[in-house]
């Protein structure tokens, strides 16, 4: 494979990993907890800006880019900070959007939050350099002596590693009693409250968890591409993630990851190479149209997606287990499934 192709595929893998992290975050919010977070991209952007500001160092006097803060943290710390800041913003936005508002109106509130965020960042130029955005964001681990192509493969591998770690937590959440309570609140919030579930608490937990993942995904993306501006996170980007979830199967971790492969990667990449016709930019514009239509088509014909939410089955009867129940002190052995049936 030529260097150009290798570069292309490594880049696609990084994008795939970033998109998978993002759809897992949005899936916990939307697929599991039923929150239509149409401001999702804002939390990814927050993570990206945090990574940029925390690795760019203090802005030099008279520099072409102005931003607040500015530090030279090592990459892993900046990555965690990006998750933290996006999580904190989720607390604030969640408390505004998730209280006292019905689900359909929540979606409107979040869409408006997305528009406000773009407007604020564009106009408050001292914050993160306004519409011009930030660039020259340093590449992490660049000093390790990688070649140009091997660095991209390294970064692709690291992104997948972060995905693997994230999956451990995502899977735990979706299969835990907490995830079950979130799904109950999604299906019928009044009934869930009537059996003592704290609806706001469950939604806030899902919202912040998703926000942290969004922040980490944005941080990984920006450290790879080296630049970030308001044009990278306009509100329609959120719809690509929603489409990925609807296509892949809302509520299913592996389903939405498949959706992340099929929609932002396979679908948007293959249509990029269609020959342009009519006016310049027609194909680009049609991509957005097609993403919307894809979403609609699935909602009509296959609303549960390609890999639907798992049906949780429980072992026929705990009393008939082959082995005696594990002693608590030692804990269940690795890989042992107690009670839940995969």
């Amino acid at each position, binding site marked *: 494979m030529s260097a150009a192709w290798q570069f292309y595929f490594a880049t696609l893998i990084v994008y795939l990993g970033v998109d998978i992290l993002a759809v897992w975050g949005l899936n916990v919010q939307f697929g599991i907890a039923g929150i239509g977070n149409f401001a999702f991209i804002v939390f990814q952007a927050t993570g990206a800006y945090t990574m940029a500001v925390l690795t760019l160092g203090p802005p030099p006097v008279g520099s072409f880019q102005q931003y607040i803060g500015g530090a030279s943290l090592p990459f892993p710390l900046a990555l965690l900070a990006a998750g933290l800041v996006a999580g904190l913003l989720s607390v604030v936005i969640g408390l505004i959007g998730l209280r006292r508002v019905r689900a359909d109106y929540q979606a409107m509130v979040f869409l408006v939050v997305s528009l406000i965020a773009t407007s604020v960042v564009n106009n408050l130029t001292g914050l993160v350099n306004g519409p011009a955005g930030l660039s020259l964001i340093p590449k992490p681990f660049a000093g390790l002596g990688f070649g140009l192509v091997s660095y991209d493969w390294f970064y692709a591998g690291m992104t997948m590693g972060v995905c693997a770690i994230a999956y*451990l*937590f995502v899977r*735990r*959440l979706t299969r*835990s*009693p*907490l*995830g*079950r*309570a979130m*799904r*109950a609140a*999604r*299906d*019928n919030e*009044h*009934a*869930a*409250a*009537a*059996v*003592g*579930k*704290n*609806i706001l608490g469950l939604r806030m*937990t899902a919202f912040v*968890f998703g926000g942290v993942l969004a922040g980490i995904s944005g941080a990984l993306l920006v450290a790879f591409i080296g630049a970030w501006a308001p044009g990278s996170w306009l509100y329609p980007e959120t719809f690509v993630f929603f489409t990925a979830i609807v296509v892949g199967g809302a*509520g299913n971790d592996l389903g939405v990851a498949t959706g992340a492969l099929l929609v932002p990667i396979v679908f948007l990449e293959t249509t990029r190479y269609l020959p342009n016709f009519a006016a310049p930019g027609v194909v680009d514009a049609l991509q957005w149209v097609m993403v919307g239509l894809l979403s609609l088509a699935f909602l009509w014909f296959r609303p549960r997606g390609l890999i639907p*939410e798992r*049906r*949780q*089955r*429980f*072992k026929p*009867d*705990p009393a008939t287990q082959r082995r005696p*129940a594990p002693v*608590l002190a030692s*804990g*269940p052995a690795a890989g042992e499934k*107690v*009670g*839940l049936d995969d």
Partner: protein
Amino acid sequence: MTDLLSATDVHRSFGGVAAVDGVSLAVEQGSLTGLIGPNGAGKTTMLGLIAGALKPSAGSVVFDGHDVTGAGPTRIARRGLIRTFQLSGEFARLTVLENLIVAAPSQNGESIFKALALGGHSWRTQERELVRSARELLDRFEMRPKEDEYAGNLSGGQKRLIEIMRALMAKPRMLLLDEPMAGVNPTLTRKIETHLTQLRDDGLTMLMIEHELGVVERLCDRVIVMALGKVISEGTMAELRGDREVIDAYLVG
């Protein structure tokens, strides 16, 4: 006998309509009390006011010695006052068994830290217990064969059963039942009656809205009659049959 639940002079209006207009009622510990009245009498609104789904504009609600006036549904449910819904309130995309298990109070695995903790799942032991007690309930209500079915796919009558079983999983001290037999065929109605009688004999306190007076007569110790947002009468069904006002409310109201 003491009153487990008492409401005093509760008011609630929607716009200009006084849906509940100064209702006082009490439910004795261990009793199955009926709440009847024509459509629009304010029965369901009253139930919502007791359960915290709606806030009263005036009056007070005391449950088990605690003033719960204006408390939210979550807090009231955690005190052990559990309601069921007139229209099916099942969790449609959860299985029947999950619908029951999710209702159990104080689950370890609902804490984000326990849910995400690496290593063994600290909530598995409790989960196994919950599965066991949920299955006992399913056996008792003859719904065990449906345990893996999505609740949304059940018939109307089966959804009513889910509603009752789920309320029982929540470890209630008292149930508020909103027409538990609405839209259920006669055979299942008899079954639900038997279950409710059994629960009453086990000592569970219940307040039940019901339109079928025959059912009310068979099940309820005491009956409260509402019309136009007020309590117009109360007593045993036999006493009420001779009450002119009650008959008028049903025939005219």
